[in-house]
């Protein structure tokens, strides 16, 4: 750009101390060292100044649009972070005229800056009243336009807005600020699902992180890698691994001077969570666990000493795992075993840790039953379930999901696990579950879903398209008789491979949900959520 060149010339002429410091800051950033707070603030201010200069050079309409975006974005973010969003990442340049100004800036208090900005926005808004609104305003920024007057509008989560360039830009900015690598999508996406991410297992996000990584805690890096490679899979396993990694993070954490643990630790966790969601989108259970931890951290009283606070948090996490996962599965087994009678033929799908636990407990309690394990490509998780059940000594049969209508006349009950239970009673589970529930309903076989209450979430979804996960499309490629037909699927323009992970089952197909609170019909999930909220 001609402008930046011009400014570079200017900066060479005026090499001041500030310039040298800034170069150091940029260097530190490239090396992946965590920026100190002062360095971050300085970076932000320089970007702000640069943006101001750019505005002077550009024409008025563009200026209006940018300012509008800036004014629109500013009030919804905390004051210290908004300047970063105003400009796209541009080379950090400083001009002589700005450096003394920059030196003066830290003297102004945050409140004054906020007041300044708000005054600016009001004048801009007033001037904009008659003008036509630019069509480039994304849906996500519109609700932010009046945050002070109306109550906050719920924004769509980023991971289902991949086809919206504005949302992508926002994400990129956010990740850059948190110094988390951005993972790029891979391969052609089927158009119905183009709003979701599709990553390849061959490009893990950890490639872009230097070793040793100081921004992201190593146990989180390891966890992220385990998620993205599929080493840790399954809702309960992922939540427990997450909580253990957080325990390690809390153990190694030390409060910086002039900071409070309750606030700083929460801020420290945000980049980790962004990183993990880049590795693999968060599950509902993980979301609830993170909410719980953040609440516990912010409830730590300020007088609490660091060691005491850390010990308390470790205890909280341990009790959460114990109550919500381990004891819950004991309670669910107790209720579920009542429903298993002698002579039953039970059908299970895939590998659910909870259902396996129930069946093993029932077998120990001398119930006579046999199990049919249904499996599906490409994950073939049923083999793991089969291995566990056979080891216990339970009589099992193994079929693929295409043979479902053939074996269903033999089945007396269907036990399914769940990834999450939505607020309108829909069950979100591994892809193929809704198919099993549908065919079971047609054969009048009762369908029982087993789910702990910590997986209940407030989302509402009626179809499997809106919010899902796309796995690596290369998993669908298979080699048979020495031939790999889909090897060059990327070269065929009209071919897309779709590897869905989840689907939703409507409540009409589910007869009973067994939770640690008891046996409830599928339509009573909002009642449980209400009772839980009252408790908390």
């Amino acid at each position: 750009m001609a402008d930046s060149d011009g400014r570079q010339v200017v900066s060479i002429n005026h090499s001041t101390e500030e310039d040298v410091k800034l170069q150091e800051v940029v260097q530190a950033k490239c090396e992946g060292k965590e920026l100190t707070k002062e360095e971050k603030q300085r970076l932000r201010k320089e970007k702000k100044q640069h943006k101001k200069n750019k505005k002077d050079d550009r024409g008025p309409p563009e200026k209006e649009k940018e300012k509008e975006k800036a004014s629109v974005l500013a009030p919804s973010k905390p004051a210290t972070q908004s300047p970063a969003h105003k400009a796209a990442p541009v080379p950090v340049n400083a001009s002589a005229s700005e450096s003394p100004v920059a030196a003066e800036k830290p003297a102004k208090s945050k409140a004054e800056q906020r007041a300044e900005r708000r005054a600016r926005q009001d004048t801009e808004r007033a001037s904009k009243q008659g003008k036509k609104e630019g069509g480039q305003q994304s849906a996500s920024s519109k609700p932010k336009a009046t945050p002070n007057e109306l109550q906050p509008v719920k924004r769509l989560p980023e991971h289902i807005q991949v086809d919206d360039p504005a949302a992508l830009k926002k994400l990129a900015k956010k990740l850059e600020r948190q110094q988390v690598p951005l993972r790029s999508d891979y391969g052609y996406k089927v158009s119905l699902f183009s709003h979701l991410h599709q990553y390849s297992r061959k490009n893990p996000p950890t490639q872009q992180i230097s070793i040793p990584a100081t921004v992201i805690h190593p146990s989180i890096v390891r966890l992220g890698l385990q998620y993205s490679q599929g080493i840790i899979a399954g809702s309960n396993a992922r939540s427990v691994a997450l909580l253990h990694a957080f325990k390690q993070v809390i153990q190694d954490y030390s409060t910086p001077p002039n900071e409070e643990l309750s606030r700083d630790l929460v801020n420290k966790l945000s980049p980790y969570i962004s990183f993990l969601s880049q590795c693999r989108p968060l599950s509902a259970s993980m979301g609830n666990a993170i909410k719980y931890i953040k609440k516990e951290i912010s409830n730590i009283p300020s007088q609490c000493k660091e060691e005491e606070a850390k010990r308390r948090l470790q205890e909280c996490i341990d009790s959460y795992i114990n109550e919500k996962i381990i004891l819950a599965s004991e309670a669910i087994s107790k209720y579920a075993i009542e429903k298993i009678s002698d002579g039953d033929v039970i059908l299970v799908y895939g590998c659910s840790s909870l259902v396996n636990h129930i069946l093993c407990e029932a077998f120990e309690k001398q119930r006579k039953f046999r199990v049919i394990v249904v499996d599906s490509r490409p994950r073939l998780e049923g083999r793991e379930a089969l291995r566990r059940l056979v080891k216990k000594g339970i009589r099992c049969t193994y079929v693929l999901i295409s043979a479902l209508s053939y074996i269903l006349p033999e089945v007396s009950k269907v036990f399914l696990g769940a990834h999450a239970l939505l607020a309108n009673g829909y069950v979100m589970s591994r892809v193929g579950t809704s198919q099993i529930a549908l065919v079971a309903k047609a054969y009048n076989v009762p369908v029982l879903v087993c789910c702990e209450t910590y997986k209940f979430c407030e989302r509402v979804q009626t179809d499997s398209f809106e919010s899902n996960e796309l796995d690596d499309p290369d998993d669908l490629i298979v080699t048979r008789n020495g031939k790999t037909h889909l090897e060059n699927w990327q070269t065929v323009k009209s071919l897309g491979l779709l590897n869905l992970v989840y689907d939703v089952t409507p409540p009409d197909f589910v007869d009973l949900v067994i939770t640690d609170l008891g046996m409830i019909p599928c339509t009573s999930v909002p009642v449980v959520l209400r009772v839980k909220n009252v408790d908390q």
Partner: protein
Amino acid sequence: MNSHAVLVHTKDDPFVIKIREDPDVASAVAAIRSLLKFLKRDQSETILGLRENMTKAIHRLEETDSSVAVSSGGELFLRFISLTSLEHPDLSQCKNVMIERGELFLKKISLSRGKVGKLCHTFIKDGAKILTHSSSRVVLKVLENAAADNKRFTVYVTESQPDSAGKLMAQKLCNLNIPVTVVLDAAVGYIMEKVDLVIVGAEGVVESGGVINKIGTYQMAVCSKAHNKPFYVVAESFKFVRLYPLNQQDVPDRFKYKADILKTVKDLNQEHPMIDYTPPSLITLLFTDLGVLTPSAVSDELIKLYL
């Protein structure tokens, strides 16, 4: 211990006598009255002992009359009286509190049938043809209220073998000057196209929103669904029970057969069950003293009652 055993024995008789004296009283209400009497006469030293005695008494009652309503009514009674904070230092004070709450509970449920009747009779329009099954005192109350409201309607009652309870119901309706016809159990499919709505009582309402009622109710529900006729269930709230049957087989044996049969007969496969389970998908609305509920709202109410 001896005195306790004697009490349990003698209490047994008053319960049976109560039912015979006043056949208009629901069996659950009579059971709760006996339980209240038992509570007054009980002489245990601790609250835990008291509760154990009550549980034993409920089991004894279930042995005499194994209907679902007695078991659910008994459990709800126990929960209701012990739901208060019994933190008085003196045991007799605690007992008085419990007895007070017991009286309150009894009064509430004695009035429940009237409440249900008032709620439901507005759904019966002038000139309606109603189908009902076997003999239910709540349905009788509803029809009584509708007749008192000067509505004209005719009633078809199924015979309801093996005890021909339908004929008894027809007799009672005749006494109220309501035109009634008795039909065979096998004629439900035949008559369904003529009727406008179906109203049945319930012995128990389960967690899923389904009902347990006299055998033949399930058939009627399936038929009415096929003909798109509304299927209404009228039941008092003390009949809500913490069962969750998945199908007919899943209903516990102790509810399916009469109490004396359970005690004497060895092979239950030779006996015919007296009740069946109607799943919630076939029921349009439930009328209870808690209000008019859809089957999915029953679970909500149950959670409120029991938790």
